[in-house]
């Protein structure tokens, strides 16, 4: 595998990992924009805009975009998060030219009023769809509560009210501000050669408007709180908790990833053995999420409503034990094996490499090959975990519940 990096005159960052032993090539634009970059009056615009990107431009209508992607057999889609909006396609190498052209169309769509009005309905439907997922409701609420007053607390989808009130003109202004070449990274992974790739990129992406934009990184100051979303008809109670963990720029994030596997993976972790294996809960896990200038520990628990307190106590006993005694060498070794195997399996597909390639560049201007990732995992020690726990113990400030419970005694 060979890594290449280049910047176009307009500021577009290009990172590519070429691998001639795979069958496909995946390309993705990582636009450094998401819900945290929105103001309150345009809440949900990043995600709505992601939908609008597929409506085409003066050359390709909406029908053309979908039709041509399908004609070349592309596996394509997009996603919006708090910090990055990503547009990607995986294709056979012979279709890379067409694919790069279409992907570049997604960066500069027309944003017509009629498309906007129609797609607004789809966005409202999507909000309705997620309303029917208790874990999503819990996530939206815990982000709002934990990051109260901080831009990371802003909802990705927005609300029925904010989307209904949003205008096409507001979206155009937001787009002009955020979709500048200097705010975008193009990552490519798979079977192609860099010289011809670069020629395609220059042809299709050279005209993206130059410029960059800022993102304030205020400190997170969570206030301890409990919020319950009452749903009488829900059979189970869903609980999420959130605490402070390493920021995306800290090297302690690697130890945090590994600790989350030891403590809260979905199989053979401490939470698994103490809560899931005995049948006390339907699900219990711990995850680590990193952001620009922030990081979180996040737990999720679902169980029968009457058992919530007992199960939260069990969970916190696990966390207290880890905070006080750390983890064992054997646990560390098993987690390393698990993670290493995941790195290898995920890395076999260009689509699997794409998110790691683009993500590392957007956040840190870093390139990590599979071998680098494996070496980092292998190099972690109990001392790193101890340092992590010293600085970022498994402590939780914010609790959100979704389900029939109206009160919690924690």
């Amino acid at each position, binding site marked *: 595998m060979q890594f290449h990096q280049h910047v176009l005159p307009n500021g577009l960052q290009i990172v590519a990992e070429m691998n001639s032993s795979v*069958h496909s090539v995946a390309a993705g634009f990582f636009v450094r924009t998401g819900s945290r970059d929105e103001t309150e009056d345009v809440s949900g615009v990043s995600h709505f805009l992601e939908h609008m990107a597929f409506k085409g431009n003066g050359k390709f209508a909406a029908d053309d975009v*979908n039709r041509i992607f399908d004609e070349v*057999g592309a596996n394509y889609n997009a996603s919006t998060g708090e910090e990055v909006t990503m547009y990607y396609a995986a294709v056979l190498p012979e279709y890379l030219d067409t694919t790069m052209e279409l992907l570049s169309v997604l960066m500069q769509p027309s944003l017509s009023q009629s498309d906007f009005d129609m797609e607004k309905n*789809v966005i409202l439907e999507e909000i309705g769809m997620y309303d029917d997922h208790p874990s999503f409701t819990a996530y939206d609420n815990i982000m709002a509560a934990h990051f109260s007053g901080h831009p990371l607390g802003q909802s990705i989808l927005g609300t029925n009210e904010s989307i209904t009130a949003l205008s096409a003109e507001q979206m155009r202004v937001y787009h002009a501000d955020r979709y500048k070449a200097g705010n975008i990274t193009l990552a490519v992974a798979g079977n192609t050669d860099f010289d011809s790739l670069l020629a395609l990129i220059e042809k299709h992406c050279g005209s993206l408007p130059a410029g960059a934009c800022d993102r304030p990184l205020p400190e997170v100051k969570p206030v301890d709180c409990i919020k319950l979303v009452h749903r009488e008809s829900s*059979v*189970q109670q869903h609980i999420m908790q959130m605490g402070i963990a390493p920021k995306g720029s800290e090297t302690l994030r690697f130890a945090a990833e590994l600790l989350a596997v030891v403590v809260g993976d979905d199989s053979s972790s401490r939470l698994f053995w103490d809560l899931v294996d005995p049948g006390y809960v339907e699900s219990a896990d711990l995850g680590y999420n990193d952001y620009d200038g922030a990081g979180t520990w996040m737990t999720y628990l*679902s169980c029968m409503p009457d058992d919530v307190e007992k199960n939260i106590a069990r969970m916190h006993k696990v966390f207290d034990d880890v905070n006080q005694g750390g983890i064992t060498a054997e646990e560390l070794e098993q987690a390393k094996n698990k993670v*290493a*195997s995941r790195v*290898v399996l995920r890395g076999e597909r260009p689509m699997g490499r794409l998110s790691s390639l683009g993500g590392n560049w957007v956040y840190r201007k870093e390139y990590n090959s599979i071998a680098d990732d494996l070496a980092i995992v292998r190099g972690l020690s109990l001392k790193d975990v101890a340092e992590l726990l010293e600085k970022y113990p498994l402590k939780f400030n914010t609790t959100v519940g979704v389900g029939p419970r109206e009160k919690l005694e924690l």
Partner: protein
Amino acid sequence: MTSQKFESFQLTNGLRVVVQTMSGLQSAAMTLMVPAGAVYDQRGKSGTAAILSEMFPRGAAAMSARELSSAMDNLGLQRSVSGGLSYITFSTATTADRITDAVPLIASMVLNPHLTDQQFGPARELVHQALNAMEDEPKQQLGHFLRRCSYPAPWGNPAEGTMADLPGISLDDIQQHYNKFVTPQDAVVGVAGNISAAELQPVIEEAFAAWQPGESFTPAIGRVEDSPKHIEHDSAQTHIGIAWDTVPYRHERYFEAWAAVSLLSGGMSSRLFTEVREKRGLCYAVSASINTQRDRARVFGYAGTTNERAQETLDVMVAEIRRLHEDITNEELQRCKARAKSALIMQQESTMSRSSSLARDTLHLGRVRELEEIRTKIDSLTVDQVRDFVVDYAPSSMVLVTIGPEALDPACVSAPAAVV
């Protein structure tokens, strides 16, 4: 398309093994499918196979659950056991240099599980919890009812079990189910990755040699539940499921069926996505796909939409299904072919996806369908063939299941098809 190398062998107890060597990759994956799924649950004991599936990872031979799990983690073995309708499936993957060390552990889990009181209680509780979770996810619940109204029992039974039957299932039922159905003669192993059959064969033979064959069983066919059916639910959206007959994977016209469904729902230029979502903005999620069992299959359609627009969504979906035979163009079919061929080629980048295809093909067809054969079949499809199929299999009526605050008018699904 690159050439493929398959090798297969059979153990004296009947277990069939198919190996595809994928030398460009670093991993290897193994899928073992045993025909011991929920269709074999005794009447009134729906959930037996689901509980048994939960019990497999809970210790094997002399190893406790934790010891077994540690041994697997030390090999970096990703694994899952899933109790499906027809089969219990053991899926595993790790780096290719470790797969032969993993085989004895996998075999031990299958051949010598701890079917004890100590493990039974928690396993049943977990199945109970999973059923509770399903109640909170209307889309999942919809799938459950759609199957019940589409297939005769036990083929329409829920793989997850039912809340009503769960308390009546005993450890004895689990042991009986295990002894009767977890047998090698109709089971299949698919292995794909950077490993040869020559390396694997002695390891698999030794690990699975003690597995005793038993009898083969075919469940008796019962009744299909009535539809249209509406389940009242305090949800934000109305979830719509419709179903109609098509042909199963092993049928000679399967690829025509596949193309027909692709026209409806394969990709974002397909008819349902374009008509329901793009032109009318009626919903976020709309789809149709083939749900195939060995001997029967249905197309399952789905849309989730807010209540005020649910009736229109249903009407438009059904109209599109009914007019599928109209105006099929060669360009439309070419797009479906391009998507399928690219997916086939990309499948060769994943050992997990290949190993499960090897096992499923063997069970459905009695052999592995090589990618080149699939490509030829897809390439040779014509517009006339696909149109003829759509006409021949036009639904005269459809199953309709809805979950949401209000029932819909089902008239459109029962109107006879006006196909020329």
